[in-house]
């Protein structure tokens, strides 16, 4: 079966990251033959989610590529380097002892039982790894806006059936001086109930939100402010203190210097999404964001896409007219009309920037939410740090533990970029230390950077496309838009993931209904003959 790869096909996709998987599913959906390969042995590429053990494996073996000892021929073909270290500056730290020195802990007991019966000081690394499968770590965790592009596309395409989601129940920013969490009121009801702001502040906040939302329909009211930045705009409207923080840090996801238009767009997205599935605008994918590329791949497969993991692509073959004709993958020649390659493998791509990431496993929560988004505001003109604290109910860890993701734009390395945010809220785990200390303790941490790439225009044949990898934004909308643009460029007259028909209106020919009808007819005929 593995060698029944159709060739030629309409679209050949290299890499199973999110953006390219969306394109693959859209192409399959409209009846194009898609072949989707990945040199890795898992789906998701730099968007994937891993259990503890799998993460150790991935980080351990950096050489996933098949050996490319073949001499590079001087042809016009594009050679692909599977060694590109998209994920780099990896620093992993355990704060637990390896084995339990003291006791005889029954090897059969699982982690949760152990925690309940035995004091935490005897927690060990091997116990945690025993429950490896209960951990789900995202390389690129992201949220969905309830009324954003991703949710829209999931619903219309029906792909939402393949995954489950949970509401992010708390949104916070941080007081710069006191370094405490400030809960951000999102909905009308939150604002009404808030005891943290005065009545006048409530009015000003609501007024500003309405103004931003109505910006599209009443642009005249805001002309003179369009030139300035958002911070000045707020000052001009007497918005200070906590309300200003709420708006800039959490609602607009901006900084003081963000321009007015971008801030307003984000505010509109935020406000539009409130109330659809919960009080905040965001959803989290259960079991981790790596589920989503898999869902799109599944959809593509349902509509006829062919999937091959562990398939290493060495070369993109260019024809005499300058257009790509296909690829060479695992020593097979595969022909295709269009080729889509993830940007980290794109031979002409250059590194433009990076994302600084950290994943922590802690033993105590900062908030009482099942999933919380905290913005650590920008300091020293660094970008703000987004912190996602996830509890067991989001299916990323066992009970009693929490997974914390930190994301920011790369300035130096992940460890340096995220130090301040981590030190403000967390402390490292030390056995025998009094747990009455308020800060949550870090049991394990992983820092790394992810490169972001740029594919310069005109350097690829027109039928070869570069699929962007993850960026540092907290949501998926940019990527859905990118996928749609790529799709529209390849197939301009086609619908992008059109709505699926109502199941009741679908008749399968050769279905039971038809069979019964047929047999009724036959029976009648038979009777007629007898009579």
């Amino acid at each position, binding site marked *: 079966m593995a060698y029944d790869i159709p060739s030629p096909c309409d679209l050949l996709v290299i890499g199973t990251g999110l953006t390219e998987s969306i394109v693959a599913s859209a192409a399959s959906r409209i009846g194009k033959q898609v072949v989707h390969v990945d040199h890795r042995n898992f789906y998701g590429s730099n968007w994937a989610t891993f259990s503890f053990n799998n993460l150790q494996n991935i980080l351990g073996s950096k050489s996933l590529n098949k050996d490319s000892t073949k001499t590079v021929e001087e042809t016009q073909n594009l050679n692909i380097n599977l060694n590109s270290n998209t994920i780099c500056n990896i620093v992993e730290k355990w704060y637990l002892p390896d084995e339990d020195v003291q006791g005889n802990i029954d090897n059969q007991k699982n982690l949760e039982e152990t925690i309940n019966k035995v004091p935490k000081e005897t927690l060990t690394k091997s116990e945690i790894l025993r429950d490896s499968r209960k951990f789900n770590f995202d390389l690129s965790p992201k949220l969905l806006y309830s009324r954003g592009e991703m949710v829209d596309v999931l619903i219309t395409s029906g792909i939402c059936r393949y995954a489950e989601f949970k509401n992010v129940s708390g949104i916070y920013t941080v007081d710069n001086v006191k370094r405490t969490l400030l809960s951000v009121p999102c909905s009308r009801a939150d604002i009404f109930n808030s005891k943290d702001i005065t009545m006048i502040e409530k009015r000003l906040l609501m007024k500003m939100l309405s103004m931003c939302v109505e910006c599209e329909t009443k642009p005249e009211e805001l002309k003179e402010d369009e030139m300035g930045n958002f911070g000045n705009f707020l000052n001009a409207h007497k918005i200070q203190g906590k309300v200003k923080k709420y708006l800039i840090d959490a609602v607009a996801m901006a900084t003081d210097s963000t321009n007015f238009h971008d801030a307003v767009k984000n505010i509109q997205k935020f406000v539009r999404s409130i109330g659809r599935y919960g009080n905040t605008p965001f959803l989290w994918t259960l079991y981790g964001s790596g589920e989503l590329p898999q869902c799109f791949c599944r959809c593509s497969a349902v509509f006829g896409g062919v999937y091959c993991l562990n398939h290493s692509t060495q070369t993109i073959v260019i024809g005499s007219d300058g257009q790509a004709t296909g690829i060479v993958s695992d020593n097979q020649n595969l022909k295709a009309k269009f080729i889509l390659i993830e940007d980290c493998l794109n031979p002409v791509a250059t590194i433009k920037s990076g994302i600084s990431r950290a994943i922590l496993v802690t033993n105590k929560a900062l908030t009482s939410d099942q999933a919380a988004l905290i913005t650590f505001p920008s300091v020293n003109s660094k970008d703000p740090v987004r912190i996602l604290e996830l509890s067991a109910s989001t299916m990323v860890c066992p009970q009693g533990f929490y997974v914390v993701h930190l994301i920011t734009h790369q300035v130096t390395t992940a460890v340096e970029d995220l130090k301040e945010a981590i030190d403000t809220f967390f402390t490292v785990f030390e056995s025998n230390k009094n747990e009455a200390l308020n800060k949550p303790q870090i049991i394990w941490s992983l820092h790394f950077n992810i490169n972001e790439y740029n594919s310069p225009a005109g350097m690829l044949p027109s039928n070869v496309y570069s699929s962007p990898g993850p960026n540092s934004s907290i949501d998926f909308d940019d990527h859905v838009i990118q996928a749609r643009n790529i799709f529209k460029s390849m197939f301009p007259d086609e619908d992008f993931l059109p709505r699926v028909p109502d199941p009741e209106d679908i008749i*399968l020919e050769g*279905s039971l209904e038809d069979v019964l009808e047929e047999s009724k007819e036959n029976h009648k005929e038979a009777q007629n003959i007898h009579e």
Partner: protein
Amino acid sequence: MHGRLKVRTTAEQQEIKAKERAKKMVIYKTAMNLIFSKRKSGELDDEILKITGQVLTENPDISTLWNIRKETILKIKDAMPDLIDSYISKELALTEQCIRVNPKSYNSWFHRSWVLDQGSSVDFHNEFLLCDKCLELDERNFHCWDYRRIIVQKSKTSLENELQFSTDKIQKNFSNYSSWHYRSELLPRIYPSSSDESLLDDQKLAEECNLVQNAIFTDPNDQSAWFYQRWLLFNGDEKFRTSSSHSSLLLTLNNELESCQQLHDLEPDNKWVKLQVCELLRRINGLGNETEILQLVQQLIKVDPLRKGYYTYFGNSTILMNLKKKIKKEFTSLILNTLIVSGSKIVEENQEKRTGQS
């Protein structure tokens, strides 16, 4: 192996629907005939319950059928009192189904509350759950609110519990007119003022004013909050007040005026806050504030032209009311002056008489 996907056309869909409707019509007619013939021959039995149940699930608005069921239940209660509870639960299940089909059917709710009185015991927890569910679907369903009052009464639930219920509802959505309304009913019964039972206790009044102010500042366009505030502040308009309660009310009114004026500064185009400021000014000192009131009336006419006639009337009636006060004042002082003048005249005359005499 795979069938091909074929999607039904709209014409096919319509044809299917038409066939279904015709089928339903025949069933309905047959059922109704059967029901009435059984009723005529006095056969109030399980079968009549079954058939009326089927018809009512499709159309809960046929009150005669509900009444037939009531008759049947009463007959069973008489003849087989041990079995009555199982029949009661069937009635509850049926009414719940009908309420799902049409949550605003008088008949279904009415029958359910009648049924509650027939059994030996009532699972009030279940009844409250049903109410909660319905109110979640439609917060303004007054049938459901009415039913809630009935079960609160029957179950002797504490009013404080219900107050907490209304608080929870308001915290979830303060635009819930019905929840504020419910509050207005409960509060005077739980926290009556010491001077007049129909009025609210002073401290509670202050707390409620604060609560509703939060709503007004968060969304000054929400009618429900304004109506509630009106009730809080102006409910005692016609009531006789002791001088101490009068001065405490005056204090409250002045506080509210201050915060309304703050809101007015932020929202100069909002008709509700303007009107409220007018009402407050009129009650605090209609005569002294006349100019300001009339200015606001003019603004109201501009901002809410739909009710121009009403605002003009409001302005005119203020002027008239003040005029009456002025006249009364002047008339009173005129009388006093006349009395003083004539009184002193009398004194003078008497003096003259006396001096004359001496």
